[in-house]
Structure formats: C-alpha cells, structure tokens
C-alpha cells in the first residue's frame, strides 16, 4: 500500500488535514430547492467531520436525478454512474477491487423500486459493505413528472391522472430482505440526515437510508406525501440520534436509562436518545410492526429503524489477502508452470 498524499492545510482543517473544499463536488445541475442537493451537502459535511480521506471512498449511482448527485460531492473520489436499477451489481463487483475503500451509493425511488428492485434486494441480502441512500420523492424527475413505485395511492399529478396502485415501502423491503442497517429520514431534517449518514458509513455492511427528498418541480404539493410541507407536518422521530466516533468521549447529554447505545465494529457508537417512546432498533420484528403502524397512521417515521452489527459483510465472507486484490502482482495471480503438469495429468 502506498502512503496517503496529504494536501497542504488551507484554512480550517480536519484531522485528515483537509478543508471542507476538499470534499466538494461539481456545482449541482438539479433544481433549486431539490432535496437531493441538501443530502449531497450532508454527505460532504459527514465525510469532513469523520475525517474520511476522499481517496478512501468510492461512489456509485444508477440513473435518474438522484443518480446525478455523486458528481456534486467528493470530487477527489472515484465514482461510477451505472445503469438504471443496476448500480448494486456494479458496486458489488467494484468493491472487491480494494477492500479498504468505503462505498457510498446514491439511488432514487425510480432507480431502486422498479427495475432496480431485484438488485436492491440482492445487495441487501449479501450485506455488501456500503451506504445505500435512496433519495425518495415519489416521482420521475428527469423524464418530467411520472409516478414512481413509491408514490402513494390516490396521488394526483399533472398530466398523469391519479395513481391507482399501492406504494412500495423501501425501508420495509430492506428489512424483509434481511438488511443489517435500515433508516429513514427527511431531507428537511439536515441534522438527522447527517448523523444517520455517519452511522451508515461506519456500519460494516449494507446501510439502507430511505430519505424522503422532495421534488420541488413535480411533486411538492402540500398534500403529497413526499412534499416538504407533508414531511414537516407528519415527521415522527424515533429518537434523537448522534454518532460518536471511535475512542471519543460521549458528549451527548442524557439521563440514566434515557438512551440506547449501539457499538459498531470499529468502536464507534450510535447514541439513541429517547423521545416519546422507548425503541430498541436491534429488534427486527418490532421494527416491522412499527413500520406497518406508521404506514397505517400516515406518519413519516424517521431515525434508525433497525441495526444488526453481528452479520459478516460480503467481503468478510471471502478469504481474501490483506493486500487489495487490484494491487496483487502477476506472480501471485498466475499459477506456476509445474502446476500445469498436474492439471494435464488429470485430463485423461
């Protein structure tokens, strides 16, 4: 492995010696006020605050408005903008190249909940170590305002009529596919989005973030369930969530018995401060029940819905060398000449 090339500090720097500028991307080409832009900004803030070196990350996306956003953060990071609904397979293959890289993937409801449903389910079930954000706005933006599979039944859109079908619930789908990290948030709640991103990046496995991210152009009517107004009105937070990095003292202030603490594989902790209810995010059946209940009550339930820190990730399952696979020398990849005699002897 080669040494990290450290950039000269300019202005305020983090522990990696980098300024916030080092985490920026190209200017966004999405609409003013799009929820996706605020999520991109929270990815930048989270990576900066976690002292992540951009070269230690790799970005993925599929096709759609959401999938354009990886160019709007982490300019110094490799990325691949794949095919519609088929980012999960691309990421699965690519993450084997260098197992020390963190995966950050951005998809949308059109990309994940229709053509991408199969690959979404399978990347979840394989527990690929990667943050998988679904920027969920219930509508196809790039093709100008058609219904997506997460649009609520009864939603009326200009030129499209009224949606007759039941919606797909991304968090539920993740949960029934045995995801090891499932969270839901709202792009209008910047602090929670950022803390969840940090926890998701730190998690050693698939971390699904279903973030309601309003489309200001095609689906932001007050009564639409993916709008800013509806989100503000109906958000119910499961807990007040904070990410505490490894080996750092817990600064969050809470009384005895008023918080649940989840320790991640690297020693980082997630502190879940109790709000209206006591909720244990490691209980999968409770999580399923609660999501059903929230849907029935038409609540936008946000926070860490489920976490399992015990499952090995896909990369842990394979018995691979410490050296990243893409740096193995030829002599470690091509078997010796002598071995071929044995092979030929077997072919009679």
């Amino acid at each position, binding site marked *: 492995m*080669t040494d*990290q*090339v450290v*950039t000269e500090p300019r202005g305020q720097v983090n522990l990696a010696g980098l300024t916030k500028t*080092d985490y920026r991307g190209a200017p966004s080409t999405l609409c003013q006020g799009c929820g996706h832009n605020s999520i991109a900004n929270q990815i930048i803030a989270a990576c900066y605050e976690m002292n992540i*070196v*951009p*070269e*230690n990350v*790799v970005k993925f996306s599929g096709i759609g408005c959401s999938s354009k956003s*990886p*160019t709007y953060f982490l*300019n*110094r*990071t*490799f*990325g*691949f*903008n*794949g*095919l519609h609904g*088929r980012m*999960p*397979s*691309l990421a*699965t*293959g*690519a*993450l*084997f*190249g*260098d197992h020390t*890289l963190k995966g950050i993937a951005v998809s949308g409801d059109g990309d994940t909940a229709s053509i991408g449903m*199969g*690959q979404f389910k*399978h990347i979840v079930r394989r527990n690929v170590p990667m943050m998988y954000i679904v920027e969920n706005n219930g509508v196809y933006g790039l093709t100008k305002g058609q219904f997506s599979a997460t649009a609520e039944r009864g939603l009326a859109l200009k030129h499209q009529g009224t949606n007759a079908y039941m919606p797909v619930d991304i968090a539920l789908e993740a949960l029934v596919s045995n995801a090891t990290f499932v969270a839901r948030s709202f792009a209008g709640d910047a602090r929670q989005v950022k803390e969840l991103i940090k926890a998701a990046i730190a998690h050693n496995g698939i971390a699904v973030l279903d973030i309601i991210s309003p489309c200001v152009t095609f689906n932001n009517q007050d009564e639409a369930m993916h709008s800013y107004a509806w989100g503000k009105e109906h958000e119910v937070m499961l807990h007040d969530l904070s990410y505490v990095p490894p080996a750092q003292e817990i600064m969050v202030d809470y009384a005895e018995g008023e918080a649940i603490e989840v320790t991640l594989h690297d020693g980082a902790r997630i502190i879940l401060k109790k709000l209206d209810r006591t909720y244990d995010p490691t209980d999968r059946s409770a999580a399923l029940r609660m999501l059903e209940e929230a849907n029935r009550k038409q609540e936008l339930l946000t926070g860490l819905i489920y976490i399992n820190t015990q499952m090995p990730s896909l990369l842990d399952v*394979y*018995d*691979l*060398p*410490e050296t*990243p*696979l*893409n*740096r*193995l020398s*030829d*002599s*470690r*990849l*091509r*078997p010796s*000449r002598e*071995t*071929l005699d*044995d*092979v*030929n002897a077997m*072919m*009679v």
Partner: protein
Amino acid sequence: MLAEKTIPQADTPKSGQQVVNDFSITVATVNGSGSQTSNAAIVRSIFEMGIPVGGKNLFPSNIQGLPTWYTIRINKDGFLARCENHEIVVAMNQATFTQDLADVQPGGVFFYDDSIRAPITREDVVSYPMPVKKLIREREVPSNLRDYVANMVYVGVVAYILNIDMDKICSALTFQFKGKQKAIDMNYGMVTAAYEWAQANLTKQDPYRFEPMDKTAGFIMADGNTAAAIGTLYGGVQFVSWYPITPASSLAETYFDFVPMLRKDPETGKTTVVVIQAEDELAAIGMAVGAGWSGLRAMTSTSGPGISLMTEYVGLAYYAEVPVVIWDVQRVGPATGMPTRTAQGDVLLIAFASHGDTQHIMLFPGSVNECFEFGWKAFDLAERLQTPVFVLSDLDLGMNQWMTRPFEYPDQPMDRGKILWEEDIARLNGDWGRYRDVDGDGIPYRTLPGNRNPKSAWFARGTGHDENAKYTESPEVWERMLGRIKKKFDTACALVPKPVIETMDGAEIGIIAYGSTDDAVQEARNRLAASGIPTDYLRLKAYPFSPEIEEFIRNHARTYVVELNRDGQMQQLLTLEVPERAPDLIPLAHIDGLPLTATWIVTALTAKEVK
C-alpha cells in the same frame, strides 16, 4: 436416434472382413439413469488403448425420463467429428427401442437389454441380448444404485464383444470414482460379471473390433468448459460472476475444484479470485464490469439468453472503456430454443451488441486446447484494449469429451495494459486525462479505485464525456470520442490471434470455418480431395478480421463459409469486410442442433460445386 436423414457413408462390411478402430457406438438410455459414468469409462478405456476417440452427449432439456444418446466416434485416422452412421447401437431405453433398432446401419450391431419386450425385426444386423436385470439381481446391488450399476452391464458385454482391455476399464473407473474403493468394486464387479457372462454365453458374429494403437500419446481428453475455466485461472482471473445456464454452468462450476488447487496466494495462503453466483445475468455482467473497472481481471460466463440480458451493460463497458471478458457457450436460439443443443448463432448479436455504435472483439476457440489458451489470452486483450472481449464457444465444444493437445503454459507474461498508479500521476504532475489518446493507438491510460493520489480519481459514466472524463454534450467531442474508440478496434486487428491457414495442391476454392466445426471440416476436406475437389482452409480465431482473411478471400475463386446457424452470420460479417467479393462468399450454414458432420459439408459443398 434423433430425426435426421441418414446419408450412407462407408460401405457395408463384406462377410469375413474385419472393421478395426473405425466405427461409431451409440448408447441409447433414459436421461438421468447415470449412463455418464459408463460412457465415460468406455471412452477413457479406448483412449488408453491408444485409439483416437471422441464422445458426444446428445441429450434433451430434461433431468430425468426423456431419451438421451451418447455417441462415441472411433477413428484410426483421427477424424472425430460426429457421423451419421450408427454401426453399433446399445439399446437400454424401452421408449426408443424400435427406432434405435431401425437406425442401425446394415451389417451393424445391436446390443439390447433383454428385459425390453420388443421384437428384433432386423435380419441384417447382429444382435446381442444382455440380461441386465438377471445380472443385477445376482450381484445384490443396493436398490437405490441399481439403475446406475445396470449401465455397467453394457460396458462389460461391449468390452467382450469389441475387445476393450478390461484393465483399462478398471483404471478408468478408479479414476472416475477418485479411488473410492467401494464404488470401484461395485461397478467394476458388475463389468466383470457381464464380461464373463458374455464370454460364456455369446458367440461373436460381427466384424467390429478394437486393436491397441499408439495414436493418443501426446493427447489429453477434456471438455472445453473445464479447459476454459482452468485457462482463466492461469490468466490470473480475479473475479468471476455467473448465473446458471445450460450449457455454460459447468464452466463456472469448474472453479469449485480448481480454485483451491491453483489459486491460493503463494505469500499468504489466501484465495486470489472471487467467484460469485449472481441473481441473474443482468447482475452477473454488472458485477463483472464493476470489478473490471476497479482493476480486477473480471469475467462472466453465459449462453445466448444471458448475452441478450447483458447487452446494455456491454454497451456501457464499451463506451466507458472497461475491460471485461464474457464467455458465451452457445446453444440453439432464439428464445428458449433448444437449450441442450449446439449452435453458432450468437455471432451477429455479439459483434454489434448494444444500442448506438458499438463493435466488439470476439475470439473463437476451435479446440479444447484453444479454450484453455483463450481463457488466459482474453484478459490480456481486454486489459490492453480496455473493452469487452467475448469468447464464443458452444455446447459441443464446451460439454463434450474431446481428444486434444495438453494445455500449454502461457507463452507471454500477463499484459495488464495502460494503468497509472500514485507514482505515475506524481511524475506527470497530475496532468493526465482518462480518455486522452497519448500514444496514437486509440487506447487511453486509466487509474484504478484505491489509487491514493488526489489527482488520480475520475468519474466513469455512460453519458457523453470528454478527454478528462467530464460530462459534455458537445457535438465535436462526441464524434471525436467515438472515433477514437473505433481506432482501438483497428489496433485490435494486430493483437488478436491470427487465423490458421491450411492449403492443398490445386485448390481453387476456399473454406472458412470457426469453432467446433474444425473436425468435421478437416474430414470433409479429406473426402472432397479424394473425390477431386481439393480445398484450402482458413480457420478463423478472432474478430476483427486480420489482413490474412481478406487476402484468403481474394485469392480464391469461391470461398465457402461453414457454420452452425441459419443465416450465415459469419458470412455476413465477412461480406461487410470484403463487399466486392460478396457473390463469391457462399454460406454453408446449417442448424439442427446437432454437431456438424463431414457428410453434411461434403454433400452441401459438392451440390454447389457440381452443377
């Protein structure tokens, strides 16, 4: 037998005349009855006796119950293509008994399970009953194994009548059962009992027999899928994603045995290749493209329907310039078609797979040995050219047993292509562009995820991009980029394997063929020459076509393109290459799902030549 017109090929043997090492044996069984082991034992024993032999399984798309045939061609001169004649038939399947009997060539031999209640209506064949049930009862075989061991009865009877060396059968079974003594004893015990029964009860009345030769020294027996997988392991493959599909599955399944043997890291003992069964072909290609982009030698193996599904990712890999290797073990299409039958029908689909302007490199292994060779070579081409490389095998080559030259160790070091690491970017002071044509060969330089130089990263995309991988919809840039990618295809002409050309004195006409038809073409040329039509032969190994191919076409009055499809797909590609010679490029295209025979070629070509 499968419905086909039987074209007489050799004369019926005259009485008293011996036929030695030149005939074919067809075994008719019920699918799923375990005849693979017994057939393989016969083939391996004949091979060990030094006699050229090849075995082809003609099987239905079914796990258990439908009829299946295994044909074994024995030829002292080494012509091992399938042939239409059935000199010797072993009938173990009641359902096809009457047809099997009808298909025996006059003067031929008919071995049959005597518990099948059907009349022997032919007087022009020699028939031998086999008391399969009785012998099984006497051996006290456990009831769950009876069907399997029953097949050993015909091995023993055939061995006695045709003179197969029993020691060779014993060693073949020892090999197949990997030394497990109990299984060897049970099966070889049955073979011996059947042999001894035949010795005591049958009198040889037919002219066919095996005599030991020395014609198999320097050869091995293998199938193309096994050879391909092992070849890729010697090519340093690091990532395989696959989805089960006949006839490609056995390629990926070969890794279960050979990865532990061949790919433990010499330094750490860890495994240096990832094999992953994807959820479908859409994901299999996605994973392979992701792995190829991240710098791994990545591949997937599939058949026609899988290629259809992979097409969009192939287009992205072409335009984003990602190396990836795709094995297509072809079967009969369109649609589900005949999944267990062989074809060369994906040539045009692959040549231009995906929307927009695309053109892909294809390799055509013509032997099992070449499956091994292209196993490693395809990665060198894919990484050098930064593009998908397809290897087109087929069911016949991939799944059947062929006599072939031993696998040869790669004669070139691995070519990882143009890759820049941290120190390279530093040396360039960060002034590089992912899609710049620095060397004039159309091939740009690439960096890989994990490169820690802050100037190394780039964003791969299917959208329009410039030399620095930045998004653009500039008309000039689009045209320039696509033109440069096409230049790589010209560069590829000089890098892909050259064709093999074989000439004959006085030949005015040429034959072009590729892949699994080589044996049939060679045999056909021999017979055509004997009937006064000498031919030159060019066996294609790759697309794009190297200059020798155009020259060959120009140098012959007429060139016949022999292939296993309806539309003469390779002939069409060649016509695009040499349009002015189109009238003289004559398709000899044939598709019925069966491996090509010399007789078909001789008949079809003669009909065109003799008018």
